[in-house]
C-alpha cells in the first residue's frame, strides 16, 4: 500500500507539470494568433500546438502512457477511420469520383 501511495504521489507531481504546460501552450497559441501569420503556417502551428496539448491530455490524464495493448488496438482503428473522415473534404475538392 505504501508503495502504491508513493506511486500516486509521483503521478500527482506529473499532473501538475502537465497542467502548467497546457496553460503555457494555451497562452502561446493565443499569442501566435495575434502575430497574423500567413494562413498556411498559422493553421499548421495552431494545429501542431493543439496536437501537443491533446497528446499531453491523452497520455497523462487519460493514462495512455501506461495503458494495455487492447486499448491501443481500439485507438488504431479509430485513428484509421478518423483519418478517412478528414480525407473526405480532400476527395470532395479533388472530385476523384466524378472525374
Amino acid at each position, binding site marked *: 500500500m505504501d508503495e502504491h501511495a508513493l506511486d500516486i504521489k509521483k*503521478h500527482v507531481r506529473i499532473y501538475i507539470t502537465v497542467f502548467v504546460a497546457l496553460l503555457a501552450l494555451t497562452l502561446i497559441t493565443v499569442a501566435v494568433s495575434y502575430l497574423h501569420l500567413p494562413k498556411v503556417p498559422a493553421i499548421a502551428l495552431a494545429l501542431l500546438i493543439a496536437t501537443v496539448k491533446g497528446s499531453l491530455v491523452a497520455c497523462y490524464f487519460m493514462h495512455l502512457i501506461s495503458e494495455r495493448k487492447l486499448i491501443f488496438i481500439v485507438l488504431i482503428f479509430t485513428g484509421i477511420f478518423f483519418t478517412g*473522415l478528414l480525407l473526405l473534404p480532400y476527395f470532395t475538392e479533388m472530385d476523384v469520383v466524378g472525374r
Partner: protein
Amino acid sequence: MQLPYAATARPDTGVTNGKLGTWLFLASEVMLFGALFATYIILRVGATHWPHGAELLNVPLATINTAVLITSSVTMVMAWASCAQRSLGRFRLYMGLTILLGAVFLVIKYFEYAAKIHHHLYPRTNTFLAIYFTLTGLHAFHVFGGMVLNAYFWGPGVRLWRENPEWFTHRVEHAGLFWHFVDLVWIFLFPTLYLL
C-alpha cells in the same frame, strides 16, 4: 450486485470491462466530432469568404474557458488519485471542483451565445456561425452530460464506495476518461474556431 470484471481486470483483455466499454464509446465520439470537423473543412474550403474567428467571436472569453476546462481536467484526475489513495473527503473536494468548473465553463459559454444573439448573429446568419453553433453547442451538451455523470459519483453514487472502493475508483476513472475527452475536443475547437 456484482458485475463480472468491474473491479478487476479481465485476464484476456488486461483491462476492466468498464474501461474497454468507455474507450469504445469514446471511439464512436471521435467519429461524431470527426464528421463535424470534416464538415467544417468542406464549408471553409468551399466558401468565397471566411471570417477570422476573432472578427465575430470573443477570444479572451474563450481563452479563459480553455483554462477553466484544463483546470477541471486536473481536478478530475486528482479526484481519481484521491480515490486511489482511499480518501473520500479529498475525492469529494476535487470532484466538487470539477463539477463547479464545468458550470463556470457553461456560464461563460452562455454569455458568449447571449452576445451573439444580442448582435443578431444566428446560426442562419452565415455558414461560419452555423458550424460554430453546431460544434460548440454539441460540445456544451457533452460538458453538461459529464457534469451529470460527475454529480452522480459525487452524490448518490458514493454508496458504492462503502461496498467496493476498488470498483468505485474504476468508475471514477471511466467518468474521467469522458471528461478528459471533452477537454481534448475543446483543445482542437478553440484554435479552429477562434484563432484561425
